[in-house]
């Protein structure tokens, strides 16, 4: 990921001209019905909304183990996500380029809405963190066997030194929140008023900086193998 944006490109993404022959039959039917008037459009909207609700409910349940949101609030998140996704889909219908099936394009909206809403709802009842910022938890974060904590003490101390001394204050704050305190990235983005990509970029740069220091100081070999 190169500054200011992540590396790589999407040069392979076609901006297809949308014609009826480019679309599969189902996608063409959705576009035609949603673009029609009267009852046909209303029926299509009801059908699409019902699908979005079903997908949103399924998605919040799939994610239930990784969010403090639960019970009725989780169902509420799903219904809100479906509602907002429906509005966005109808508003952006003209943006559909036929690069995927229509339903895949439409379902993306509801999946992303679920993500965003779970990030916001996280702060309504965040898990109690009694020992925020405790570096002692770092080995557990990476699944290091307690019996081997002593062996990993050196490299983890170097990680801490780099975080303390070489990261910027913003990088340190984000790293501690995400890696040590395990705050979900989307929830942290909400708290800091940033987009997901901005948080990811901070973590990306922090990871690169820490790894570079570990290699420079002999804790990792360049290909990535631990040296000591």
């Amino acid at each position: 990921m190169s500054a200011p944006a992540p590396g790589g490109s999407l040069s392979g993404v076609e901006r297809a001209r949308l014609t009826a022959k480019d679309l599969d039959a189902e996608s063409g039917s959705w576009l035609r019905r949603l673009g029609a008037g009267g009852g046909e459009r209303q029926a299509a909207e009801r059908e699409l909304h019902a699908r979005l609700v079903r997908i949103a409910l399924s998605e919040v349940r799939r994610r239930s183990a990784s969010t403090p949101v639960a019970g009725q609030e989780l169902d509420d998140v799903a219904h809100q996500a479906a509602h907002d996704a429906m509005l966005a889909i109808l508003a952006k219908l003209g943006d559909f380029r036929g690069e995927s099936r229509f339903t895949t394009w439409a379902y993306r909206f509801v999946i992303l809405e679920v993500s965003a809403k779970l990030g916001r709802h996280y702060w309504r009842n965040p898990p109690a963190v009694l020992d925020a910022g405790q570096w002692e938890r770092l080995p557990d974060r990476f699944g290091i066997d307690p019996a081997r904590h002593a062996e990993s003490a050196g490299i983890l101390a170097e990680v801490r030194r780099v975080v303390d001394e070489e990261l910027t204050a913003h990088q340190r704050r984000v790293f501690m929140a995400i890696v040590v305190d395990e705050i979900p990235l989307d929830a942290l983005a909400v708290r800091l008023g940033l987009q997901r990509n901005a948080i990811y970029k901070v973590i990306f740069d922090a990871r690169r900086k820490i790894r570079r220091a570990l290699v420079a100081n002999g804790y990792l070999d360049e290909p990535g193998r631990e040296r000591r």
Partner: protein
Amino acid sequence: MNELDRLERFLRTDPRDVGCDEAMAVLHVYVDLVAAGQDAAGRYPGVAVHLAACGPCGEDFTGLLAAVTGG
């Protein structure tokens, strides 16, 4: 497996990583390719790298794939 492999993998970055915004912009295209059994990662390597490295975007990918495949 080395005890510190997870730490090393976490710290490893790939310059092909396209980031969240670009990955999410083509998520529907990528998912359709995966669902159709095509080489999505070969076609969009930077997206594949990102989805493997970014937990939230990886979750979105898994969720959308489940939605379109009924899984």
